[in-house]
């Protein structure tokens, strides 16, 4: 069989970084081809070259064996190449339906709103999600945005569909839905290029696998030729042990105690205690209100009712600054919007919440000390970058996440709230993060971990709190839970069947 799209010996250099080094890849119709690689291995860069966002420095692209050059996205779409990007790219002021059909230059110059809504509804139905197609995209959660992105790509007549970590912010239910669709498309002869850091998923969906390391292709093969161990070895370049290093420890005093916490219309009746050295997992479907609880605890969207006791004292947290001073740190789920100042170098991002610590006698920033801290974290978390002076915006997704983690760990918090801490992080880094969470808990930190990655929640938590539609469904201890129990709680009745 002929490949639909072939990439021949493509290289791409960003000043200082060789993002892609002489890479070749073939995509065949009717296959799901997965790209694996550590953060910064060059996966997204390759995709951006396939969609005309970046131009390769050298090398060529062949469509049906004919060389093509893709100058921009419109051209890529013309060739039948569509992509779902790692970071959702929605138009907040347009409504959902418009967002879905934004790339349809062939729908004519005049908008037919009726048709638009009908078609958008149909596509969303196929995806199995309920979203009001007329509501503006502003304010959609990350997951909802991701859904819109998927719908957008599906709406195009594509021969090559690229999905750059589409599942990173989806929970199991949505992922299953997405995979059903993906297989459908594959069976219709679409070539699918899939990227994910969740290895279980990868083996579930892939036909073939290609592994990148440091901008080079390391191996390509049929999925069943790979085992998880081999995949990891190819990605990381060395053997790695299993994922979750959970060490059980004796929990200490209660650090955080929440009673009847509520914010009108968002969540209500949240009650739990969190002890030092304990990891409390927050599970639930996307949109179940977990992030909102975190935001309430961190003072960004203070609650309307209920009590928060921190280290035994009743507190009323009204601003992030106050929360930080109390010793609460929050790693947000949307790192682009909330986590990082993209043009800032890594070092300034890390020191931002703790800048006051780096002030010298005459009131100026002590750059040396600031840099020393940043370098420490860069080494400890293995942040891949040219230096700590690299702007955060130029890092790969996973490395950005590590910067956000560094920034909050540096506040030396007593309570660490992690919202999807491993979203978009590669296996190596993921296990590092897990080890770190474990370490921190050992050192007596209280950790609240929100995650949509069920194995992660199960593997890392001492106890798991499950939420559904803004209500707390129960707290389960590590010993008594399984994926099924949690899913049932998270989805209510229908999931049980």
């Amino acid at each position, binding site marked *: 069989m002929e490949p639909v799209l072939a990439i021949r010996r493509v290289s791409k250099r960003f000043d200082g970084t060789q993002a892609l080094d002489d890479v070749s890849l073939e995509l065949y119709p009717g296959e799901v081809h997965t790209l694996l690689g550590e953060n910064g291995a060059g996966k997204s860069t390759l995709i951006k070259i396939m969609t005309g966002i970046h131009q390769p420095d050298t090398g060529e692209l062949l469509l049906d064996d004919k060389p093509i050059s893709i100058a921009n996205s419109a051209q890529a779409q013309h060739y039948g190449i569509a992509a779902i990007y790692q970071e959702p790219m929605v138009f907040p002021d347009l409504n959902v339906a418009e967002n879905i059909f934004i790339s349809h230059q062939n729908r004519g110059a005049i908008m037919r709103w009726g048709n638009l809504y009908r078609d958008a509804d149909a596509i969303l139905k196929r995806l199995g999600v309920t979203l009001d197609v007329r509501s503006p995209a502003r304010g959609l959660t990350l997951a909802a945005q991701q859904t819109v992105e998927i719908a957008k790509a599906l709406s195009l007549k594509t021969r090559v569909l690229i999905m750059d970590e589409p599942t990173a912010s989806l929970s199991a239910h949505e992922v299953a839905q997405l995979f059903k669709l993906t297989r459908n498309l594959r069976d219709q002869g679409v070539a699918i290029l899939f990227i994910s850091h969740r290895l279980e998923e990868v083996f579930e969906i892939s036909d073939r696998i290609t592994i990148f390391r440091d901008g080079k292709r390391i191996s390509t093969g049929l999925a069943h030729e790979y085992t998880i161990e081999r995949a990891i070895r190819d990605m990381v370049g060395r053997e790695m042990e299993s994922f979750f290093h959970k060490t059980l420890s004796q929990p200490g005093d209660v650090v955080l105690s929440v009673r009847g916490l509520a914010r009108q219309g968002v969540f209500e009746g949240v009650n739990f205690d969190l002890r030092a050295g304990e990891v409390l997992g927050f599970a639930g479907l996307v949109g179940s209100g977990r992030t909102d609880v975190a935001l309430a605890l961190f003072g960004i969207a203070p609650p309307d009712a209920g009590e928060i006791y921190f280290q035994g004292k009743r507190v009323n947290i009204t601003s992030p*600054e106050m929360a930080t001073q109390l010793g609460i740190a929050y790693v*947000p789920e949307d790192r682009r919007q909330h986590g990082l*100042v*993209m043009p*800032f170098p890594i070092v300034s991002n890390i020191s931002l*919440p703790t800048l006051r610590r*780096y*002030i010298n006698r005459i009131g*100026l920033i002590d750059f040396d000390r600031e840099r020393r801290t940043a370098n420490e974290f860069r080494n400890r978390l293995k942040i891949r970058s040219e230096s700590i002076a690299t702007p955060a915006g130029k890092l790969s997704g996973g490395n950005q996440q590590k910067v956000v983690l560094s920034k909050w760990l540096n506040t030396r918090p007593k309570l660490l709230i992690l919202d999807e801490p491993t979203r978009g992080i590669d296996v190596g880094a993921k296990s590092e993060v897990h080890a770190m969470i474990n370490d921190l808990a050992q050192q007596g930190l209280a950790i609240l971990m929100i995650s949509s990655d069920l194995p992660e929640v199960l593997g890392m938590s001492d106890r798991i709190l499950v939420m559904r539609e803004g209500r707390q469904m129960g707290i389960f201890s590590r010993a008594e839970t399984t994926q099924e129990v949690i899913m049932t709680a998270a989805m209510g009745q229908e999931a049980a069947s």
Partner: protein
Amino acid sequence: MQRAINGLKRWETLLFIIFIGTVLNNVAQSPAYLNPNNFINLFQLSIEKIIVAITMTFIIINGEIDLSVASIMGMAACIMARLYDVGVPLETGIVIALASGALAGAFNGFWVAVVGLPSLAVTLAGLVGYRGIARIMLEDRSIGGFPGWFNAFGQQPVLGSLTLGIVVFIILFLVGAIILHRSAFGRYVYAIGSNKEAAIYAGVRVQRVKMTLFIASGMVAALAGLLIAARFGAVRGNTADGFELDIVTMVLLGGVSIFGGSGTLVGVGLAILIILNLRNGMSLINITGNTQTLVIGVLLILSVLIPNWGRAVQTWIMRQRLRSAELAKGGER
């Protein structure tokens, strides 16, 4: 080497080159340019604008804008003059005028930082409103005849051959540069300008920073208003009318992004030197005001356009070079 090239690519370097160009041009054009008095005049004639440009730099880097500065200048001057006219001691009047500037800034800041309205809208209203207060103060009158010591501040040197305005500018510029580039506050200013949300999540007191900036902007504008009163020796309702555009132009030419988050005070300093030199040179050879404005308009556009083209050419050359290298390699096999 790479570093040197990167240094060359900086906006400031380009500005510096343009600056040297204007100086050389002026020397060639007019013998009067090198007259030492001329250098003092050059600053003195725009001193109020360039003082306000310093706080404007902070505000724009912070992602906001303050269009009301010129009106605050006028308002403060008029308040002082009116108070003097009704018999309040000038010293008291000066303090009240400065306080009125701070208050106006705080008022702007309240709507922007606390209520969250766009600063463009708020300060556009301020532009109209504060000018209105200036008008109410003096109506159709002009008030002058201030004590000699006051006028001397605007007209006579206080330090060597430097006037008070120039001394104030130098001090504000140095202090401003240190605050902006070396202090935590300056870092917050950039952070908020780049990504306000992330700054909030990092516990930066965004409201307080914005409030501080607007108050400082109002107060410095009031100070500049008083300086202009001292320099002109008289105050009218239209004092400093329309200065806001010149001030914003200086800051933007200095490489400060109107969208916030980037720019340096050094760049703004260079832009100020360029504009003042250019205007001075043209004035000395009797090029009229309209043409001067036109030339500065062209310069403003070119200063962005040329580096853009430069970068495009550079990328193209690099790609060509890689291509040919690739071809050569291919040939070997």
